Each structure stands twice: as structure tokens, then as C-alpha cells.
């Protein structure tokens, strides 16, 4: 039966079977999630909840193995939940994991595609490059990070791409500068049919700008704050071409040209204070606002 996955008498244990640190704050895990692995396509994401009382956060799927029933997640330790996930070891289980959510990417032979990945966004870009290659595209990849130590997966990227360009802010690896500098040159020298950009919002906005200047369509993968991930709450609403869309069900990928990036940046700041408080409590082991406010 399709839906009946039981192990050790329990259903749906989302066990971490592999764990590897790719950069000081970037971790790759492989998780047992057979139902998700069967269906996952590049562009989609999962929502996880680590424990009782935990929050639900979206994480992009960076690979899947339907045969083994495994999915790959590569994440940056940036908030409380991702830091806690980074502390989990091989053999431990995530309490809840649901997916694959969001629309699968459009996979067809576009011709020449430029894939731009920044920071932890390189992980889903690698997944996309593989998918695009398998349907016959020529793929030029551009990846970037602040420095060499933070740049992940460049060997794997080199292996699967027809061409790979690297940019680091400090020039410790590849070209010194931003991915957009490289993109500008690549677009000037090549006939490109499509750009895919996954990374920080400001990077995706800049890539879209460069793409537009060269008349090339850019697809971006948005990362707004979500709760349920099934179109129920509207937390992830974004404005795309004057229309309000829910990134969880209408996206997460949209035509960058029409995305209101400023609004996305603003909406992603909704819980900055609370996120900081959450981290502080985690590190202190108790609520530290006690002294000021008398809160217990």
C-alpha cells in the first residue's frame, strides 16, 4: 500500500539517516520520508516541526531518492528551529514532516538556462541543474557566497553544469564580486533562454534586474514566512504582477520581473524581534526578559 509506511511498529518516523556539515553554518541531512521522496520534484519544499511546541518552518527540497525513500535537505542555521535541527544527530527523528509542497518546477528543454545560486540557495540550484540537464538543457551555472569557506557544493556543481562560474565577495575563490557581475557577462556572450535564481531576496532581485536588462526571463524561488504551507493562512502572501498570490500553493517560484521584492523583504521582517527573543531564550535556557518586565 502506498500510504502505509511503518518502521519499528511506528508510522512515519522522519529519521535522519545521514548528516554532513558543508560550511560552518550549513548542514546537509538525508531524511527518511518515503511518501515525500516518491513525489518530490525540484522547486518544491517540505514543512517540518521538530518537537511538541515547535514552529512549522518551510525548507526547500534539495534532492530525493524514491528507491530508498530519502529526501535531502540542506539548510542554514539561522533561527531557533534550524539551529536545533543542526544539533540533531544521525539516527534522531524529526517529529513532523509534510510535503512535497508548492508547485513543481517547469522541467522541459528551454535551450540554454543560466542557474544562479547564492549561499544556501546553491543546494536547490544543484538539484535544479541536474533536473534541467536530464531533459536536455545546456546549463551555465553561477554560484556565489561571501567567501570560500561559505561556498558549498562547488565540486558537485562543476560536475553537472556545462559551465560553472564562481564569485565570492572577497575573492577567496573564483571571481571577486557578485554573481550579478558574472551574469551580466554571461548574458552578453551567450544566447540564454531562461534564468533561474535561488538565494537571498536581494540577490534574486538583482539577478532579475540584470535578466530584464538583457531581455531574459528570470524565475525566482521565494521564501516568505509560512505556517501551514497548504494555502490556509495567507502568511506567505506576496504581490506578483499586482495580484496577491500565496507562495505555498501558487509558488514558491514566480517570474521575478513581476515580484514585489520590497514587500517581501518587509513581510519577512515581521517577527524579527520575536525571532531574536526566541534565540535568546534558547541560548539562556530561560526567558531573559524577566529582569525588565517581570515575565516568567
Amino acid at each position: 500500500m502506498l500510504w502505509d509506511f511503518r518502521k519499528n511498529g511506528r508510522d512515519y518516523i522522519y529519521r535522519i539517516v545521514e548528516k554532513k556539515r558543508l560550511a560552518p553554518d550549513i548542514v546537509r541531512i538525508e531524511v527518511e520520508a518515503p511518501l515525500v521522496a516518491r513525489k518530490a520534484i525540484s522547486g518544491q519544499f517540505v514543512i517540518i516541526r521538530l518537537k511538541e511546541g515547535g514552529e512549522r518552518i518551510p525548507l526547500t527540497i534539495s534532492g530525493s531518492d524514491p528507491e530508498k525513500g530519502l529526501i535531502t535537505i540542506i539548510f542554514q542555521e539561522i533561527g531557533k528551529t534550524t539551529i536545533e535541527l543542526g544539533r540533531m544527530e544521525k539516527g534522531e527523528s524529526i517529529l513532523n514532516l509534510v510535503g512535497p509542497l508548492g508547485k513543481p518546477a517547469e522541467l522541459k528543454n528551454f535551450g540554454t538556462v543560466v542557474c544562479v545560486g547564492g549561499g544556501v540557495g546553491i543546494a536547490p540550484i544543484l538539484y535544479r541543474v541536474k533536473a534541467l540537464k536530464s531533459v536536455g538543457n545546456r546549463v551555465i551555472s553561477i554560484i556565489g557566497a561571501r567567501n570560500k569557506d561559505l561556498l558549498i557544493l562547488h565540486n558537485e556543481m562543476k560536475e553537472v553544469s556545462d559551465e560553472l562560474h564562481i564569485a565570492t565577495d572577497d575573492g577567496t575563490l573564483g571571481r571577486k564580486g557578485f554573481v550579478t557581475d558574472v551574469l551580466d557577462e554571461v548574458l552578453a556572450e551567450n544566447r540564454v533562454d531562461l534564468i533561474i535564481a535561488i538565494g537571498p531576496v536581494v540577490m534574486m532581485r538583482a539577478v532579475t534586474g540584470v535578466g530584464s536588462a538583457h531581455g531574459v526571463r528570470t524565475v525566482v524561488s521565494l521564501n516568505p514566512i509560512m505556517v501551514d504551507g497548504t494555502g490556509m493562512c495567507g502568511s506567505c502572501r506576496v504581490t506578483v504582477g499586482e495580484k496577491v498570490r500565496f507562495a505555498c500553493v501558487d509558488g514558491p517560484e514566480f517570474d521575478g520581473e513581476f515580484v514585489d521584492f520590497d514587500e517581501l523583504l518587509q513581510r519577512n521582517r515581521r517577527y524579527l524581534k520575536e525571532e531574536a527573543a526566541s534565540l535568546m531564550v534558547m541560548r539562556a535556557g530561560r526567558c531573559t526578559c524577566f529582569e525588565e518586565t517581570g515575565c516568567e
Partner: protein
Amino acid sequence: MKKQDVSRRIKNFEEVALGLDETEAVLEAKRCLECQRPWCVRGCPVGVDIPRFIRAIRDGRFEDGIRIIWEKNSLPAVCGRVCPHEVQCEGVCSLARGCSKFMTAKGRARVEAFLEQFNLTQKRRRPVSIGALERFLADYAAEHGITPYTAGSDMKGKGKVALVGSGPASLAAAGELVRRGYHATIFEALHAPGGVLRYGIPNFRLPEEIIEREIRQLKDMGVEFRQDVVIGRTLTVDELLSDFDAVFIGSGAGAPVLMGIEGENLNGVYSANEFLTRVNLMEAYRFPETDTPINIGKRVVTIGGGNVAMDSARVALRLGAEESIILYRRRREEMPARREEIENAEEEGVEFKFLTTPTRYIGDDEGCVRAVECIRMEPGEVDDSGRQRPVPVAGSEFTIEADTVIVAIGQRPNPLIPTTTQGLETGKIRNIIADESGRTSIKGVFAGGDATTGAATVILAMGAGVRAARAIAEYIEGCKD
């Protein structure tokens, strides 16, 4: 019914209505006139034999009483709390004047004469508190470890049914199916079962423990629950059909409706669904003990006049808002919320501005909402719902300062299943088209509740679930021939 003191309750999420004790329940039961043709039963969407369970309470046979309810309703603790009794069973109770529109002139005269004979005052003419009695029996059963009929494992060989969503429609359908000897497996997208009962209705109206208790009873009866499965994504309806004899879709009306006015995406403007989900399902009121945050300012403005608006405005107070204001575009008497909930909101200090609607939201430099620009409305022509459609009064714009806005103007069925299921016919609001028995355009696929009707009530969804379960049983038997 006794309620938690206002000054205390606006600081906690504990249940507001405290329920009846045994003496109070028996006294209330004695008020029943035991009509020969009981209107209350007709007023109940699932047809509970109300006079019979009231008689059982009167005689102190509480276990008999709960078993009578269970014959027709598998979630009495929930229905006793959230059903709009005043427009159903209690609305047609002969003791209440509300019966008049359903009665013949002769019948009405008889009731009038009866009431006068006993010199009943207006106050005593209130209907029997059927909802309170139903709740009393359900809580009595839980306290005394009385559980519904449990199906033996050998009973469940008749067929397998998958149910999509774990809200009232699926819960009622699953209960009916296992009672009839079928395997029932419920698939839920979220991490906890209960659907709208869990993510939508706040604890102070329907405590989490009550939902858990009713679900535990269903599990004991043999219903299987699978959470973290989104039908339409993780699995499709077609895949379910290959594993199960029939599929019931009870996916509810979970998609929020927004107004599409300027500033709706400012920080601090919530859909009621997001606001309530964060608080109810994710327990944001315990942040930072729990991990999900919520922002609440000093002044919270809620848009809408239904139960969801009442819930949102009352949750806001409990989260520490100093002022909680509801804007409703029609008049007070046209609010679709339950009377009891409107009264509770008023008691707790929620302010109402009627015949008022927002026209845009005004933000600050940080992109946070700071004010709501509103316009006065006046009743216009009568619309399809029989109410006067409110129309804006030109030039009557004014602004209200606000730190948080909650948009509670309605919910629609989630389009995920219709858009991923070929051949499933849908209506205007992408509601699944189903007949009285829940049959859809696909053979073997049934649907009921808010997924077919758009946002309605818990009990109507349960009624639809039970009817669909019967049709599913018939369908599976038919396939065997």
C-alpha cells in the same frame, strides 16, 4: 449556564462557559414540555432524539442519555459547545416563542394556552437549554469513563474508506463508517487532527482536551489517523482510489478571503486564519515557551461579523490588547455570529462599530499598519440573502488607529484537491459539487461539509458526513454484486 468571571477570563484561554452540574441539569431537563411532535428533533441537522435524552437526564439515567445522543452524533462534547442551538433545536423549542414561524395557528394557540395555564413569565419562556444538556452528558460520560460502542476487529472487513481532512465532516463520517463495519483512515495535512475545531476555534470556546477526547474515542472505535499527508500533493485522490474502496473529501473551507484593498499586505494585517492558527494550533500565546510568535498591538481592529470575527477579537484581548474593535458593514442584528458569542464579546469589552467597512490600511515607514481608513455604510437594496446590501455613504470616510488588523470576512474551500483531481466538478467558489448523499462527479468519490457548501457550521458538516457515510456503505455493497 455559569461562566468564568469576565475580569479573570480575559486573561486566560480557559473555557468561558462552565457547564451544568447534575442538579442543574436535572432541573433544566424538567422544563421540557415533552411535546408529542417534537420540533427540536426536526431542528437538529443530525436528528438527535432530544426529548428522549432529556427524559433520561430528568430521571437521572445519564449513561442512557449519552447513548441516545451517540446513536446520531459522535461528537456531542463539541456540538454541545459550538452548535448554533438558538437557530436549530432551541430555536424551535415549543417553550420559546421562536417556534411560531414553524407552527400552524392551531398549534401555536395550544402552546400559548399551555404556557398561560402555568402562568409562565417571559423569562421562563426561554427554550430548554438543549445544548447545555448535551454538553453535560458528554462531559459526564468522559468523567465516568463511559465510551461509545466499540467495533470488534472482525467487524471491519466490509471495505476500506479513505477520508480527506480530519474536521467535523470526516470525523462524523468515519464514526458512522466504523459503526457499520468499514475500515476508516483519515488523512490530515496538519500535524494534529481536528481540522477547524483545532486550528480555528479557540480554547476558551472549545478546549483542546475536548477535541482530543472525541478523537481518542474514534481511535478506540478503530478509526485510523494519518497526519502530515496533504492530499493533492503527498498523495492524490486517484492514488487513494487505487488503495481504498471509496474516498470521502471533507477538506473544509480553509482558504482565507481577503478584501484586496490597499495596504492589506502591511505587517500587522492578518487573515483571521493565520491569526487563529498561530494561537490555537501553534499555541503562540505561550511564546517564547513555544516557538511560534504572534504580534499584538495596543489596539486591534477585526473586520467581520461572524463567529470567526468574535473569536479573533476575543483572542486579541487575551493576548494583551488594550482595545479590541470589530468593524461590521451591516447592522448588529444582521451579524451571522451566534448571539451567545456576541454577548460574550461585549461582556469582555470588545467594541463594535456597525455599518462600517475599511477602505484601505495606512502603514508607517517600516511597513507596519498604523491606521484603518473606514467608510460609513447604509442599508441599500435587498440582496440574495434577503438582507439589505450595505452601500457606502459618500464622503463619510474616517480613520481609526490600529496596531493590528484581523480580516475575518470569510473562508473558501481550498482549491488544492479540485485542481489536482481530474474530473472533479466544482462550483463558483471552487466548492466541490456533491448531491444530498455526498456523491461527486467521480465514481467512488464523495464529499461533504464546508468543502462542498463553503463555510457553514460544525453540525451541518457532521450531518453531511453521516449522510455520505451511509451512501458510501451503499456504494461499496453495490460494487460487490
